[in-house]
Each structure stands twice: as C-alpha cells, then as structure tokens.
C-alpha cells in the first residue's frame, strides 16, 4: 500500500498552515513527522485522516483520492489524536465496544475483536475502569486501541508520547515496533526526537507549513555530515585534562572547547584528515588519549540545524 501526498495546502484565512507539502510512504514504513510548534504537523495529520479538507492538493491511497472519496480512508486509516477527549461515565471496554459498533462489526466477532485489542494493547486489567479517571498514558493506550479496531493499514499518530512518563514511553515504543513488524504504515509526529530516531525508518521535517527535508534518517544525516565542515570532537585523556584544554584553546579552527567530566569536547572546523593530524600531534606531544570520537549527527542535530524555530 502506498500513501501519496501531492501539493497539500491548507489555509486558515490569511495564514497558510500547510504549504504545498508532497511526500509518500509505503507499508512497513514508520515516518517521523517533526517540526517546531505551529509548523503544521497536526493540520497535515488531520487532513490525512480526512478530518480537514485541504484548499489544494491531493492525498491518495494506492492511487485513489481520499479527498473526494473519504470513505476509502475510513476503512484503512486509524487516527490517534494528541489527547483523548473527555468521555464521561463510560468504561474502557464500553468505549472500545462503541467504536467497534461504529465500524459495523457484528457479534460475536465484535466481542472477540474488542477482547483481542484489549489484550494486544494491555488494557485487560483496566477494561472496567472509567475513561475520565485514567492517567494520560492509559488514555493514550485506549486511544491507540480504538485506532486499531478496524485493523488499519495506515496509522496516524499525533504526538502520542507527549506527557507520558518514561515507562509509558517505552511501552509505546515497543507497541510501535510490533505494529511496524505487522507491516503497518505509521506516520508519527513527535517532539521527542531521540525516540523517533530509534523507531522511524524515514523522517519529514516541516517548518511554517513547508517541507524542509524528507527521506530516510541515515540519508539525511549522511547528507548533512558531508555538507558540514564543523564536527564535534570528543577526546578523553588518561591524565592532564587541564593541560590538554589549554593546548586546544590556542589551536586554530577549534571553538566551543568544554570539559565534560574527564572528557574534552570541542567543535573543529575542517575535514576528517585535519582532525586525524591534530590527534597524531597530540600523541606526539605526549598526551595519552584513551578515547577519541567524532560525534555523529542524529535526528536531533539535524532538526536543530535545519529548522529556525519560526512559528506562524
């Protein structure tokens, strides 16, 4: 299955929330959707979920437009909003049963399906609890369970990890990995970039509604590594940290020299051969180095490099 987004644009009055966005995702992909606050992530996901109508552009699932035929999306898209809206006087089990009914599942299949989803999302223990008294993490899990009821091929998640404690985040990450193994296509927007780094196969960075970067994370990182001449270097000497620090401070092409514990960290402007020469010189001067590494760019550094933090 291929999810194809072409020139998607959404305006609210004079504000262009999403500006000519194009990308494509296929089954088994986990696309990390990143951007500063107000970048247009939620609006984009809502358009993909057919909750908002774009002013321009097209969204296709296997070539069929879901803008003109939203019923196509109803069958194969699951949407997890950033928070589960308050549902009073209804238990987790009743809530899931309600949505299973809305997806037109008939008994006894419906009963079986709800029980299976509760087991898969680890909700069995709280199925008789009222939703409005649940913690944010639990509510998020209920929200994911609801989105999985119709066994969607495409799962859209808007900030699913926001406000979750570390345990809930780990559980969410594990759940996403399982879903990816089931060949689901997942589009996930998040601010927790280190987590996206671990689970996403590709990423899309947007700012002010415009696409800045789209592709596989390692390709973007490599591209950025090639382009940049500034590298963060970490050296850990066996002894004489202070002396090493003083040497580096007067070296040309070196900035931002800091000590982090026993390690000395600095930014070096030059290619990898220059750094190798510098290390060799330090050895020659009698510094015993027990660790040397050039920090690789990750999604977080890519994000910081590419975006300007502008909102509209």
């Amino acid at each position, binding site marked *: 299955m291929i999810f194809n987004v072409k020139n998607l644009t959404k*305006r*609210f*009055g*004079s*504000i262009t929330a999403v500006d000519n966005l194009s990308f494509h995702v296929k089954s088994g992909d986990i696309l990390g959707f990143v951007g500063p606050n107000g970048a247009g992530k939620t609006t984009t996901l809502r358009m993909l*979920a*057919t*909750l*908002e*109508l774009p002013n321009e552009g097209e969204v296709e699932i296997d070539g069929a*437009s879901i*803008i*003109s*035929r*939203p*019923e196509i*999306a*109803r*069958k194969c*898209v699951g*949407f997890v*909003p950033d928070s589960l*809206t*308050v*549902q*009073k*006087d*209804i238990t987790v089990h*009743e809530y899931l049963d*309600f*949505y299973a*009914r*809305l*997806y*037109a599942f*008939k*008994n*006894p299949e*419906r009963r079986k399906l709800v029980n299976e989803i509760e087991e898969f999302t680890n909700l069995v223990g709280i199925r008789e609890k009222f939703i409005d008294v649940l913690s944010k993490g639990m509510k998020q899990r209920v929200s994911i369970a*609801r989105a999985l009821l*119709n066994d969607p091929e495409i799962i859209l998640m808007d900030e699913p990890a926001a406000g979750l404690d570390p345990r809930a985040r780990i559980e969410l990450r594990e759940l996403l990995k399982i879903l990816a193994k089931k060949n689901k296509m997942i589009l996930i927007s998040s601010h927790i970039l280190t987590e996206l780094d671990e689970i996403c196969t590709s990423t899309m960075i947007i700012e002010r509604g415009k696409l800045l970067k789209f592709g596989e994370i390692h390709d973007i990182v490599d591209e950025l590594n090639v382009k940049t001449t500034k590298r963060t270097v970490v050296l850990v000497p066996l002894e004489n940290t202070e002396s090493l620090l003083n040497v580096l401070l007067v070296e040309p092409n070196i900035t931002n020299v800091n000590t982090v514990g026993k390690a000395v960290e600095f930014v070096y402007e030059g290619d990898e051969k220059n750094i190798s020469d510098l290390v060799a010189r330090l050895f020659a001067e009698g510094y015993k180095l027990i660790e040397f590494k050039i920090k690789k760019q990750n999604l977080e550094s890519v994000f910081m490099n590419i975006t300007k933090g502008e909102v509209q």
Partner: protein
Amino acid sequence: MSDVNVILDKFDDFLNPILVKELRQTIRAKFFWILLYLFITFQTIFICMAFFEAGVKTQSSGEDIFSFLLTTLLMIGFFSIPLYYGFRFASERMEKSDELLYITTATPHQIIMGKFLAGIIFVLMIYSLYAPFMSLTFFLSGVEIFQSLFLLGFSFLFAAMSSMVLLAFAAASNTQATKNLFRTCSIGLQVIIFSFLYNYLNWYTNRYGIFSGENLKMYFGFILISLFVTYFFYGTAASTISPEGSNRLLWIRTRFSVISIITYLITIGFFHNSEGSVVWGVLFTIFNSVFLLIGVSEPFDYSTRVQREVPKSKLKKYLMFPFFTGTLNAFVWCFIMQIFITVLASAGSTKLGSHADEFFLFIFSAFLSVGFYALLASFIRRRFFSNIATSSTWMIGVIVIILGIFFQTVSSVFLQVFGLAIFGFLNPFYAFNKGMAPITSSLVMFSIMMFLHLKVFSAQYLSYMHANKNG
C-alpha cells in the same frame, strides 16, 4: 450459543451505536437519578396531598390533578431532558470529542438519530413512571383512560420535537461563543413555544373540552407541525455536522421543497378561507429569506466531494442544480421557491380579491430586499474580509445587521435633516410596505447586486456544468 443469545446478539447489532453509548452514559449520570427521584417524590407528595385535601370530594378533582401532573410531565419532557441532551451534545461539539465519529463508518444522520432516540427513550422512561399516578387520577373521577393516553402521546410528540430542535442548535455550537449564544436562543425558543402551546391548548380545552370536533382539528394540526419540525430539524442537524466540503444542503433543500407542498395542501384543505394561505405564504417567505441569507454564505466553488456527486447527464445536471451546495445554486433554489410560494399563496388567497395582488407584490418585494442585503453582505465579505478565518454565515449575519442599521440611519438623516423622503427606499423596512414603489426599488437594488455578482456566478455555473464530465 443458545437461540436466545443469537436473537439477543442480532437485536444488539441492530441498535444504533450512538443510542447504546448515550443510554449507557445516561444511566450513570447524576442528572438521570436526580430527575427520577425528584419526579417520583414530587408526584407522590402531590397526589397524597390531593387525596387528603377537601378538593378531592369535588367531581373535577381528578381532572385538575391530571392537568397539573401532565403539565409537570410536559415541562420535564419539553425542557429538562432536551436541554440535558442538547447541552451535552453542544459541549461535545465544542470540545471536538465527537470528531472521531466522523472517521468511522457512522453517518451524520445515524449520529443525530442515536442522540435523538436516547433523548426520547429518557422521556419515555419518565412518562412510564407517570402511569401509576395517572391511574390514581382516574379513580378520582378524572379523565378517561383513552383521553389520558391521547394527551400523553400528544405531549410526548412535543417533547420529541423539543429534543430535536435542541440537538439542531447544539450541532451548530462549535465554539464557546456559539455554544453560549445557541444555549440562550434555544432556551428562549423553548419558553416561547411552550408558552404558546400551553396557552393555546388551555384556551381550546376550556372552550370546547378535551375532545370535540374543533379540538381534533387543532390536535391534528399540531401533530403534523411537530412531526414536520422534528423531521426538518433532524435533517438540519445532520447537515450541520456533515464533514466539510460535502454536499450538505442537498437533503435540506429537497425535503424543504416537499414539506412546503404538503403543508400548503394541508393549509388549503383545512382552512377554507384565504387567511391560512396568507399565513402560509408569509411564513414560508420568512423561511426562504433565511435560506437566502445562509445561501450567500455557501462557497462560490465546488469541493471535489461535491463535484463527484454532480450528475453526468445534462438533463439531470439542470434538474439537480438548485439542490447542490453553492451560492448560485442556493440563489436559484430560493428564487424558484419564492415564485412557487408567491403563486400558491396568491392562488389560495383569491377570496381576498384585489388584496391578493397586493399580497403577491408584498411578499416578493420583501424577498428581493433580503436578496439585496444578502448579496451586498456577500460582496463585502469577499472583497474586504476574505482573509478572516471565521464561518461565512456569521460574517454575513453581522454584515447584514450593520448594513441594515447603516441604511436605516442614512434614510432617517435624509428625511429628518434635509427633508428628503425620496431616500426612504434605503430603509430596510421600506420593502415590507405594500405597493408598486417598494417592489420596484427592491427589484432595482437586487438587480444591481446580481450584476455585480455576474462574473462569479457565471464562473460557478460553468464549473458545475463541467464537473464530473468524465465520471
């Protein structure tokens, strides 16, 4: 699995999912239990007091108690329960907690029907609690069982109508401001309808008794009105919550066209004088004018979802044109409807003689004047406020009010300061006078606005005709 379980499962599958959820939530809500206990307590105390009071010995005591209890029941059914469901739905709309329903296979009509059924089942529960008290009033030389059941059914219909009207208001409450506004409006409307109904029914029953030939006619009229209103607001509520870009006015326009014909035939059949026809004409002109104001808030282009629904054959395209969502479509529909209303109303009012012609001109002049204000507001909205991201209907409403005040002031200034009565036509209420001058000025003003919209209207027409050409 036993046969009973299979049947129960089938029945469970048949139920509207929204209804199941709403009822589950209702029986856990404090409101439900408080209302239930209050109702039982109140009725018990009242009937006990009635038994021991001197009034019990009189012949009409049962009837008095019956009317008092029926009024209480009607107030609960008409006010409390519809307000509870209406307010709840309005909150859901405002918090967008109903939003996820639209990405399932549920339809807007299914959603509204589920909420409506939940409301009336709640009303039925309260009504069923009334049965023991009703039988007691019968033993107190009260009202006949058949009459009691009829009146209960009659009041139940109005409770159902009230539930639907409140749901329709709630459907439009998608912000805090609209929620507050519609809450106030809906309570006001309920009070007006209830007072009118109560006084009218009281007057009739006092004059003719509960059952008489005259009353039956009145009951029949009210039953039809309540059914029409309930049905129409059901469609309006469903259209309001329909997804953005859908052909949401198709249902309303087709049903309203049919309802107008049926009500006209009933009016003519019932009232063998010209008054009924005149009242019908004025009432439907008001409805049509409101539709015109809403019509100019509709888009000047067609979303891909609407384009998909445009018929392929040319004949069907022409026939369906007035029923599609779009400004020009709205104008064509309103215009056809107005001609239809005017001709029918005038035909029915032939007994008025020469007054029929005046009436014919009067309602058309009023309609054209509304058309002028609607188009002018739409023009201002597009020209100067197109960047404001707010609902077009609201903007048009506000602009029309400002324009009305402005033109009224201008005409008053010309008259008071300069003594020039000639600018009286600028007064928005001028068109509501009878005679040739108001209709001429309304027609000229309307034509000017149509001319200003010629370009966008012709573009919209071409876009409709070219839509869905290749399927």
